[in-house]
Structures are given as structure tokens and as C-alpha cells.
């Protein structure tokens, strides 16, 4: 970890108009939860909370927020050339990757965790949805980490990381997950759902995941390690695009 890199990355991430837009995105689930609560008719709190948190947060807000910051902290600097001022320093490449990923994961958590807790409680409190809400809130923490680190690695591998990330979230985790059960093995969403289900204890059965909790945790750690390793190796052999 390198403190000056963390500070400059935070200053960069928070200073931009894009961050403000993404923060708005994190508020949307709470609004919709409120509307559903006011006008809603369903009484089964657990299923409603699980359905809402899965559809709105784990499927859309979490990956999108992680994608924006994951690709923004390192990938955008590599593309516009400002990364040179970090690379041309006597600093080990792993320190740069870890510092950058920590900031991306940290901001993602800071936005998504409160949004999950609030949305979950607003729609589920007093109707048996509390355990589900807590389960999701805790599960989203490692979820943010894996997504963020994964997208940081993606942003070092390709300059088209944003599009590649969108394809992963909406095609691999979305479309294909419905058709091929196998995709669940490499789907961060399934890890989060499995973890949330396990944490929610008895109410956990309301959360459907095609991966059980143990394999989810193991796979998450493996994905985390592999992504970090790829990011470090690729950053070490990153080459500048010369004008010639």
C-alpha cells in the first residue's frame, strides 16, 4: 500500500462529475424501495426484499458502481498518459495495483453498502425482511472488493475495459446465467447471493443462488488472487503508445 497514491486516487475519483452521477445511481434503489413500500401490496417481506435487493442492487448498482471506479482509478490514467507519473517512480508495481484497487473497492463499498441496507430495511423492515437486508448488506462488502479488483485488472489488460465490463455484467452474468448454469462458477453475483443466503440464516432460502456458500467463498478468493496477479504482471510490462 502506498499512501500518496491512495490520496491522489481518492482526490481524482471524488473530484469528477462522473462520481456525482454514480452516487445518484446508488440512491435510486432506496427511492424505488420507498415507492414500492408506499404503494406496494405484497405482504411477504422476505421474498420482496430479496427480489428487490437482487434485481436492483446485486444485479445492477453494485457491478456498475464497481465498474465505473474499477476502470477509472487506473485504466483511465493509463489511457490519458497520467499513469506515467506513477510508473516512473521507484515503487514496486504491486504497491500501485493494491493502492489503486483499495480505493476503487473502498468507494464502491461506501456507496453500495448504505444503499443496500437502507433499501432492504425500507422495503423489508417490520415484514420479516430484516435478516435478508442484513445478509445482503454484509455480502455486498466482499462483492464490492471482488468486482472492483476484477475491473481494475480488466482496465490494465484492455483500453476497452468499460465496454468489456458491461458485456461481462449484462451478457455473462445476465443473459448467459439464465441459459447456462456453468456460468455461475465465474459470476461474482452468484457469490454475493450465495453469501447473502448463508448469512440470512433461516430466511436465506428466499435468496436463490446456483452456487453454495463454501464454493462461493473459495471461488471469490481465487478470482481475487488471480485478478490481482494479472493486474500486477500486466502493469509491470505495460508499454506506452508512442505517437510514431
Amino acid at each position, binding site marked *: 500500500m*502506498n499512501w*500518496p*497514491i491512495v490520496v*491522489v486516487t481518492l*482526490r*481524482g475519483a471524488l*473530484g*469528477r462529475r462522473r462520481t456525482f452521477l454514480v452516487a445518484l445511481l446508488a440512491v435510486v434503489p432506496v427511492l424505488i424501495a420507498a415507492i414500492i413500500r408506499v404503494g406496494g401490496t405484497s405482504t411477504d417481506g422476505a421474498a420482496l426484499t430479496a427480489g428487490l435487493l437482487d434485481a436492483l442492487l446485486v444485479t445492477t448498482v453494485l457491478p456498475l458502481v464497481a465498474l465505473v471506479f474499477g476502470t477509472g482509478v487506473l485504466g483511465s490514467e493509463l489511457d*490519458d*498518459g*497520467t499513469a*506515467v*507519473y*506513477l*510508473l*516512473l*517512480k*521507484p*515503487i*514496486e*508495481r504491486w504497491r500501485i495495483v493494491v493502492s489503486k484497487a483499495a480505493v476503487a473497492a473502498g468507494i464502491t463499498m461506501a456507496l453500495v453498502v448504505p444503499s443496500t441496507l437502507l433499501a432492504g430495511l425500507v422495503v423489508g423492515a417490520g415484514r420479516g425482511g430484516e435478516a435478508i437486508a442484513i445478509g445482503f448488506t454484509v455480502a455486498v462488502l466482499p462483492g464490492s472488493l471482488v468486482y472492483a479488483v476484477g475491473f481494475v485488472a480488466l482496465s490494465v489488460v484492455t483500453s476497452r475495459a468499460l465496454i468489456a465490463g458491461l458485456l461481462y455484467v449484462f451478457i455473462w452474468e445476465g443473459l448467459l446465467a439464465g441459459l447456462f448454469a456453468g456460468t455461475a462458477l465465474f459470476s461474482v453475483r452468484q457469490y454475493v447471493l450465495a453469501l447473502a443466503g448463508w448469512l440470512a440464516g433461516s430466511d436465506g432460502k428466499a435468496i436463490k443462488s446456483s452456487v453454495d456458500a463454501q464454493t462461493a467463498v473459495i471461488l471469490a478468493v481465487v478470482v481475487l488472487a488471480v485478478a490481482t496477479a494479472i493486474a500486477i504482471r500486466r502493469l*509491470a*510490462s505495460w*508499454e*506506452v503508445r*508512442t*505517437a*510514431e
Partner: protein
Amino acid sequence: MTAGSSTTTSPRAPASSGPAIELSRVSRWYGNVVAVNEVSFALGPGVTGLLGPNGAGKSTLLHMMAGLLRPSQGDVRIHGRPTWHDPAIYREVGLVPEREAVHPYLTGWQFALLNAQLQRLPDPAAAAAKAIQTVDLGDVQHRQIGTYSKGMRQRAKIAAALVHEPAVLLLDEPFNGMDPRQRLHMMELLRSMAAAGRTILFSSHILEEVERLAENVLVVYAGRLAASGDFREIRRLMTDRPHTFTVRSSDDRRLASRLVASPSVFGVELVDGMLTVRASEFAAFTVLLPRAARESGITLFELRPTDESLESVFAYLVRR
């Protein structure tokens, strides 16, 4: 604007031996596009100009020296250590890249401080303050770089490259966007750094400035090294190019006839009061002229070589 007092201390003893910058048979290609083709040279302390038309391979060379690009063949060493895949060399190396992108949300001061901290200097704040003063950004250092003009941003980049007082400084068109006063100040700065024993290599298209600043030049053309060294010596080596002089004297016509008699002169022109002489051997002619003038009792008012400048040398090398 006060010229920044740049009392640069001499660089720390380089980690290992070997010339400051050394390239041996270095090539770099992208598929079958060869950007740099078998280039070799070695540089010691002093200022060297890296010249060449657009697309000749200047940026590719600088990036390989800065460890931002892997050589496809041959090796690039700074103080004897390969520059690729070795972050430790950056204690000794500073680069001013050509791209203008700098963290827009940071102020000039924060940017210099960041670079100092990342260099793990004992007192980053002092180093940053000194760098800001050296490039004379004092009065705008607390404004965000996003609001800087092109010249200010360029000076911020130079401050970032100087903050750890590197032994080797690489600059890609460093004065881009600077106004006349700042250009003079920067040239003065690079001169004093070189005098303090640093090795400075900078690419530029403004030959009149390179001519006054750089003792040596490296001329690159289509990926190959066309010439290296003092440009006057290079001009001497161009024996196939005649040396042209313009002369004004008390009796041009008589002097012309006297000069034409000498084997070292093969062309004389008298056009609207200006005597132009083309000599094949530079050394012989420059000794002959004053002697011929004295023997014929002619006063020499003016003798000016017309194709000895760096522009002419560069043109001859590139148009080959």
C-alpha cells in the same frame, strides 16, 4: 520574473558504473513497421539534442530509455543497468513526456509534492518547493493544473521530473508552449544542470534553440541514427557538400579573381554587390582567404558561412 536560483548540487554517485545512457544495436518494431533500427550510441554528462523529422523514432527512443517501452532487440542501459522492467532506475532518471496530460484536479504544488513523495525523498515538501521555484511556478502553484496554460503545464511537468534531482534527464519537446522569456530561462536551467554534471537529452524541432543549447546532437532519420556529435564536426565530414561563403571586401571583383585561381575554390558568384564563394576544402579555403586579401591589399569587411548552421546540417542529413 526573477531567474530561479538553480543551485543544483552535483548528482549522487550513480549506483553502478557505465556511461550515463548507452544503447547498443537497439531496434523496436510493431509488426513489420520498424520504428527504431539498430541504433547505438553512448552519452555522458552535458546537453544533447535529439533531432529528426516527425515519425523518425525520437519518441520511441526516449520511451525505451525511460523504461516505458521494451526494446525488440539490443539493450538500453542507464549507468550500466537495463531500463526495462527495473523501477529502481527511476531514482536516477527523470522524464518530461510529450503528452500534455497531467492530473487536472491537482494543483501545481500538490503535483510536485506527489512526485517527491513517490520518489521517497527524505524531505518531499522542501524538494517540491525547490522544484516549483526552479521552474518559476511560484505564483500559480496553488491553482489547479486543469486551469493552466500550455506553457505553465509544461513547467509543472519539468518540476515533476526535477524534484528528485536525477542524474539523467530525458525531455520530449520540453519548451512546447512556453513564451520567449520562459524558453530562455529553461535553457539557462538545463545549461546549469549540465554544468553540474547531469546528463540531459532533449528532442526538439526548433533547431535555432538546439544550436545554442546542445553541445552534441543525435540526428535520427527513418529509425536509423544518421549522425551524432558536434554539428560543426558533422558538417566538416560532409566532404561531398561544398562550403558556401558570402564575402564583402574593399574590392570584391579583384578578390574573386584572385580566389578562383586557388584549387580549393570551384565557384564564385558576383550578384547585386554580393560575392559568394563555393569552396571544396573548408580548411584550405579559410587559410587562403585572409592571405589572398592581404597580398592583394584588399580589406575584408565581412565573411559569413551560409550553410554551416545546424539547420543546413540537418537539411543535408535528412534530404539524402
